[in-house]
């Protein structure tokens, strides 16, 4: 298959730009052309800014004379998950309750992208309020997998992963709370990075589960993800949970190109038990076999509390979601139901009609987990289990630097297969959720093998703030 401009990586495009082989408009127009071809089937976008993007590209063509000191992201079309605020654009979170809300400010990550000249091409589709693992729970319809439109793109950042996969953007930002960047990346065959909690500002990310949410990077190569991270990441005074780190600005370059002789890799045995599709397991194991001679050590490790991660994760995310979504009360903005005679009606009808099923389920259960009399049993317990899961990771990281696991127990599944059984959907998050609970950096990269033509994701989990090592290993595996 010939690769067009819209299929290239950030680095490749930059090379072509510097050599004057292509213009900024060429790149944007290539992306636009692909969108026109594929978007109808995939439904990856909720909003598109084609005109603005083309105008911006033309402006860059006119004004840019010299590529020295020009950000590597300049002129690169990027897609943004529609739960990250882009000023003056709709921010729907794929929900009826925000279907008319226009963002009055830019998220910090968006401000940084704009400062670097990136071209925001549109807002991508997602599971409503980022709650889901398939991108089927959207007010704007499901996202289709570019490899097979009858399959899901994964979730909740399905739109972002799908558009990067089909060429409707060069790269994208998503959000990852329990796997929402890694899993769709694995289903769509692209790279998805969830940074350490605290590395990327959450200001302007519509909160779902505040202690778990992170803005993740989706691209075609590990290097591209690293570029994105280096631009959008870093301490923000507007986010009290963001961390100041003493790193050089170009640390990612050094990270990607090195070898991995000094690295010890752990394979957690709990991730390779029944429930894992055997072909998926084989694809991942083949990668592990390939890397073994080239690193310091590969050994089996144990994360004994893995089986409790789903319960802990869902209790915590539901509780925090029920709290974060209390502000959608039809008083200041958003959807307001008609003919409400009392305040109670205004609330109940607007929220009942404005929220989708899954969101309502989680709000109700989340309130239950925090309720007087149930708090200790549910939310309180989940927070303690979270400590145990963190401790599991702390222990293995005394012996190894990174862990390799499958990203998901299966490849992309059929649309409609799991949405009638919420618990079934939750259980499919088993491999991504623990790293989220522990706040660790984790990336999903495509395996060399596919299963019946479908991509398989391999996950690498690292120590807190050690994205460097995670990216080193990921880049090495990518070069296989």
């Amino acid at each position, binding site marked *: 298959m010939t690769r067009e401009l819209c299929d290239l990586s950030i680095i490749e495009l930059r090379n072509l730009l510097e050599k004057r082989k292509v213009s900024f408009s060429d790149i944007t127009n290539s992306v636009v052309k692909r969108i026109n071809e594929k978007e109808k089937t995939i439904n990856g976008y909720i909003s598109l800014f084609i005109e603005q993007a083309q105008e911006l590209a033309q402006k860059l063509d006119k004004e840019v004379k010299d590529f020295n000191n020009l950000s590597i992201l300049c002129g690169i079309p990027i897609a943004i998950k529609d739960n990250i605020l882009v000023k003056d654009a709709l921010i729907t979170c794929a929900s009826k309750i925000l279907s*008319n809300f*226009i963002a*009055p*400010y830019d998220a910090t990550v968006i401000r940084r992208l704009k400062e670097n000249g990136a071209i925001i091409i549109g807002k991508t589709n997602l599971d409503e309020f980022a709650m889901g693992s398939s991108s089927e729970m959207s007010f704007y319809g499901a996202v289709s997998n570019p490899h097979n439109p009858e399959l899901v793109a994964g979730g909740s950042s399905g739109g972002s992963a799908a558009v990067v996969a089909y060429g409707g953007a060069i790269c994208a930002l998503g959000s990852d709370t329990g796997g929402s960047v890694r899993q769709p990346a694995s289903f769509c065959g692209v790279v998805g990075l969830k940074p350490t*909690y*605290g590395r990327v500002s959450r200001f302007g990310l519509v909160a779902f589960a505040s*202690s778990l949410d992170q803005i993740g990077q989706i691209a075609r190569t590990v290097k591209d993800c690293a570029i994105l991270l280096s631009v959008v990441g870093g301490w923000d*005074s507007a986010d*009290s*949970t963001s*961390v100041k780190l003493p790193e050089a600005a170009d640390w990612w370059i050094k990270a990607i190109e090195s070898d991995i002789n000094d690295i010890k890799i752990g394979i957690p045995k709990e991730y390779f038990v029944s429930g894992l599709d055997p072909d998926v397991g084989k694809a991942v194991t083949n990668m592990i076999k390939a890397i073994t001679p080239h690193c310091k050590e590969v050994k089996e490790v144990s994360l004994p*509390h893995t*089986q*409790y991660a789903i*319960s*802990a994760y*869902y*209790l915590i995310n539901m509780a925090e979601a*029920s709290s974060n979504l*209390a502000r959608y009360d039809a*008083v*200041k*903005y958003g959807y*307001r139901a008609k003919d*409400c*005679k*009392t*305040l*109670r009606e*205004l*609330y*109940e*009808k607007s*929220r*009942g*009609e404005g929220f989708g*099923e899954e969101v*309502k*389920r989680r*709000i*109700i*259960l989340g*309130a*239950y987990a925090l*309720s007087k009399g149930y708090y200790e049993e*549910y939310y309180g*317990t*989940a*927070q*303690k*289990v*979270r*400590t*145990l899961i*963190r401790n599991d990771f702390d222990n293995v990281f005394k012996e190894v630097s990174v862990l390799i696991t499958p990203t998901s127990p299966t490849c992309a599944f059929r649309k409609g297969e799991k949405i009638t059984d*919420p*618990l079934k959907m939750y259980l499919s998050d088993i491999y991504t959720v623990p790293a989220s*609970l*522990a*706040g660790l950096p984790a990336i999903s990269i495509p395996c060399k093998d596919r299963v019946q033509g479908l991509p398989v994701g391999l996950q690498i989990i690292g120590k807190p703030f050690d994205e460097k090592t995670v990216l080193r290993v990921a880049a090495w595996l990518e070069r296989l």
Partner: protein
Amino acid sequence: MLEQKELERLIRLTKIGLSETELELFGSQLAKIVDYFQNLKSLSLSNVEPTSHVVEITCPRRPDQKNPSPDNTLLAKMPWVKFDQFFVPIILDALSEE
């Protein structure tokens, strides 16, 4: 075990209006999920501290300064504003909720 009465209380608490069908559907779905969560009960947690924050930092503070350049266009962007005030089409009795 999530009982019907508890479900109804939660619905009132979270101000979410559910239809009869939704109520019935949610009843069984939520009960199943809560049952799954019981697997945490097998753990011994008496000596475990809860994790509220995964980042080990303390609360940063900002200096007590007024914003030098406030955004005055905010109010104009909000949908339900009269006389520069947000409004709800309901009379709120200071002593009651409805």
